[in-house]
């Protein structure tokens, strides 16, 4: 193969794999302060490429104590996906007052431990959900709200939504209904608390153990995968 031919081929490969990337995330060269050319591959250079590890729970009474604290202080990521998210704000109104159960909203995934998927997930939203979910720290819990997350609900044959949420991220508690009332969500929180206290809410570790399966499912749906494999 001649040199020019090879170059051409490489260029073609690059174009296909970079097709979905934002311009600043494509491989490119930058000119340094001294005039030298530096080649950067943003996905490898700017993002952490390390694989996540399973974080073993502590043993015995310490883990029980921690689980009690985790259950009594549920910080929910303020992220609404489908129509169900309209039922979340009333939770914090005087009528339902979720604060008394130790539930609070956090605006950043780093600090929150509970992710409420509040309804149908469009393919576009799924990508954001995966990013946010992976940025949350172990242990983390997922509550799936409404029938859309269970089997697709009334969007069952939609061209643009996913059907079963637990093919993409592990789910701890389902709350059925279309749409579930705030009382149902409160009871869902209490179910989640029981699960955490029993030490059965290990979704974060499950996700890492079966990462390949989850990733394959996710990539089947998200055709324009333009982010690192795991979003730290």
């Amino acid at each position: 193969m001649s040199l020019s031919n090879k170059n051409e081929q490489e260029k073609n490969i690059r174009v296909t794999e970079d097709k979905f990337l934002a311009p600043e995330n494509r491989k490119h060269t930058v000119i340094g302060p001294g005039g030298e050319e530096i080649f950067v591959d943003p996905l490898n250079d700017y993002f952490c490429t390390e694989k996540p590890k399973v974080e073993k729970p502590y043993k015995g009474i310490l883990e029980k104590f921690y689980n009690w604290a985790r259950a009594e202080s549920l910080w929910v990521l303020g992220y609404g996906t489908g129509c169900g998210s309209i039922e979340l704000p009333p939770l914090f109104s005087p009528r339902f007052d979720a604060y008394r159960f130790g539930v609070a909203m956090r605006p950043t995934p780093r600090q929150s431990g509970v992710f409420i998927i509040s309804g149908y997930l469009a393919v576009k939203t799924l990508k954001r959900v995966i990013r946010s979910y992976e940025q949350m720290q172990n242990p983390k819990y997922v509550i799936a709200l409404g029938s859309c997350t269970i089997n697709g609900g009334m969007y069952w044959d939609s061209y643009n939504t996913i059907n079963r949420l637990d093919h993409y991220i592990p789910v701890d508690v389902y709350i059925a209904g279309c749409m579930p009332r705030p009382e149902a969500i409160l009871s869902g929180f209490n179910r989640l608390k029981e699960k955490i206290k029993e030490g059965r809410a290990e979704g974060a570790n499950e996700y890492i153990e079966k990462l390949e399966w989850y990733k394959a499912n996710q990539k089947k749906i998200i055709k324009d995968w333009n982010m690192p494999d795991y979003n730290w």
Partner: protein
Amino acid sequence: MELVKKIGFVLLGLFIILNWGLIMSGIIRKIIARLGMRRGIKVFQPYINLIKNYSIRSQISHGVMFYLGPVFRLSGGIGIFLFMPLIHGSELWSNFSFTGDLILIAYFAFFGMLGMALGAGEGGHPYSAIGISRGLAQFTAIELPLTLAIISIAIQYNTLSISEIVAAQQGGIQNWTLVTNPFATVAAMISFLGAMGHSPFSVVMAPQEIPIGPPTEYHGTFLGILQTNRAILHVIEAVLYMNLFFGGATNWGILILKSFLVYFWSVFVGMVFPRFRVDQSIPWLLKLPVLIGIIAIALLII
């Protein structure tokens, strides 16, 4: 032996202040909830949140400064504590206070903020950077009336030692700075509103504006340290104002009562008034409060 005893009492004092800070924030949240016709959190919820944060299994780091940010913040809070006389007339509860501690404490108040700025900057999150630049800008404006008030009472009592200022105020309400130098008190109490981060000046940390500002990237143990610091800082700043303007405390009961009331002042204002934007709060702080502070100094000099 003396030193060991001293250190023991300092640690005990820190322990009491930390717990009072956590319980106080629980009580305040409960009061706010009742105002909003809610049941609200449990009084011990701040403890549970703290334990939860320390129990998070995985943490993400962004580099050395990211680690040091919360540490600097905590050392700022503990630094203020170390040089603050707690109980008037008690050798053991006066920590390491010395002549000139007032200057050092004013310095420590800013120190934590700067450390946090460096740490949050390294977090790389754009919201952290915006939050910290707004926070520092507003904090500088907040410090100005306080500094003027401190200069005023330093002239009034002719000392920079908090213990001596407290000693000069003993013997009844008529001797408190509140009565003898009302202008300085007003300027400082306005500055206190800003330092506590309740409503009119809470935009820096407001979840609704930019996701919670400087601590956006902090989680788990990092956030636990920040929360610990906040509990200490809120009480110890209230103790500072109590010492400077409200006659100090002669026992722990009075300290707890007065620090609660001083802190409650910021909560009260926060509940009544809506929030300033940064471009509104800084000009506001630089006008009336600074003027009052200058009057407080001028009256003493003339």
